[in-house]
């Protein structure tokens, strides 16, 4: 591809760039979290920030999630725009009150009069044997509870745009970044996540899905890492004469139901790829979205390729057995078509 000054970024760099640009433009934006300052974040997403903006605005916290995430809520309500990190989404257990009862509800409790313009960024995903407390996606848990927007990019372009949009949004936004897409050298990275990212600041709209591959025979819906499984499956299926359309949700809340419905109306077949637990989550929500109005003709029953309802095991053979992958998606598509 010929491009003037092509610059691919990893998602880690794209996130750091978005935060830096917003911090330059707006002095109320600041960053808090564990190891975000000198280390640049365990996942590289605050790289370079403390050097440019100093330790007051890029601040390492004690290991006190309830304390500092609660503090982010208070600061956001008082005119600041915090970007706060929960290092692994699995750690939400120690601080969820501050998230779902305060961050997500204070605007509503105040009748819309109090705003909580904060971004909670958190890492998701496994597949590298980090076991049951460090590998979860928990999309359903966060998307289910009202009052917080939830986004998760599949690539660096969307990562920068969604982060910019999230910081500028007056609503609280949970920005979930998948570890396998992040670009950390010490963890393998999905190469497709590193894409060209424009230098200037821009937004990717929150609440809008993207059709990342057009097709006619089956719709595959996913988010973050699942999008890459879907794209690889679609490439396999093309060789078999099956044309798959891939929808990248990008946001879970608000959920772009119309893009999903329009796609399945066209193809008549639906597969949802969900790295989160099977039951009571994203996959069921997408299927309900397509089925519940009774106005979309399905040529086959909807399918979900999701993580089973078990804690994530450590041993590689067991974890890989449970995870969605391109082969499982392609096999499902062949059964439907």
């Amino acid at each position: 591809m010929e491009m003037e000054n092509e610059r691919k970024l990893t998602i880690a760099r794209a996130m750091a760039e978005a935060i830096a640009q917003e911090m330059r433009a707006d002095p109320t934006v600041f960053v808090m979290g564990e190891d975000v300052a000198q280390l640049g974040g365990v996942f590289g997403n605050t790289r370079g920030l403390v050097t440019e903006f100093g330790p007051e605005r890029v601040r390492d916290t004690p290991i006190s999630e309830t304390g500092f995430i609660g503090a982010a809520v208070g600061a956001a309500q008082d005119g600041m725009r915090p970007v706060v990190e929960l290092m692994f989404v699995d750690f939400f257990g120690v601080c969820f009150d501050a998230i779902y009862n305060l961050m997500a509800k204070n605007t509503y409790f105040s009748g819309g009069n109090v705003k909580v313009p904060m971004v909670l960024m958190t890492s998701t995903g496994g597949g590298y044997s980090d076991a049951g407390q460090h590998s979860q996606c928990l999309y359903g848990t966060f998307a289910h509870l009202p009052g917080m927007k939830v986004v998760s990019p599949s690539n660096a372009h969307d990562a920068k745009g969604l982060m910019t949009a999230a910081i500028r949004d007056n609503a609280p936004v949970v920005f979930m970044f998948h570890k396998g897409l992040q670009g950390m050298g010490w963890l393998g990275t999905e190469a497709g996540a590193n894409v060209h990212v424009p230098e200037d600041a821009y937004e990717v709209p929150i609440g809008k899905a993207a059709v990342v591959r057009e097709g006619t025979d089956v719709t595959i819906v996913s988010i973050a890492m699942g999008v890459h499984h879907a794209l690889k499956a679609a490439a396999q299926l093309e060789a078999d004469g099956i044309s798959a359309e891939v929808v990248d949700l990008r946001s879970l809340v608000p959920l772009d139901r119309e893009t999903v419905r329009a796609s399945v109306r066209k193809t008549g077949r639906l597969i949802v790829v969900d790295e989160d637990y099977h039951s009571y989550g994203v996959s069921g929500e997408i299927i309900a979205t397509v089925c519940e109005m009774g106005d979309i003709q399905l040529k086959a029953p909807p399918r979900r390729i999701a993580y089973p309802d078990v804690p994530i095991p450590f041993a590689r053979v067991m974890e890989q057995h449970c995870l969605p992958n391109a082969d499982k998606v392609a096999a499902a598509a062949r059964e439907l078509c």
Partner: protein
Amino acid sequence: MAIDIIIPQDLYEGDDESVITAWLASDGATVREGALIAEIMTAKVQFEILAPAAGKLTILQPQDAVVAKGTVIGSIA
């Protein structure tokens, strides 16, 4: 006149091999001088490779390739 992109001798201490963990521009792309074009990693540390000149990039070693100090990983013309 093509300029080689070489893993610099003084980039890190020791003679460990490294791996190209990411190319941040595509083969054939036009890049600016000084642009970040690749990330490499030794056993534990990540380093940046910057474009030594402006021009069109040719990738000679792909992502995930194991390279050593002095390896030519690409060129710019």
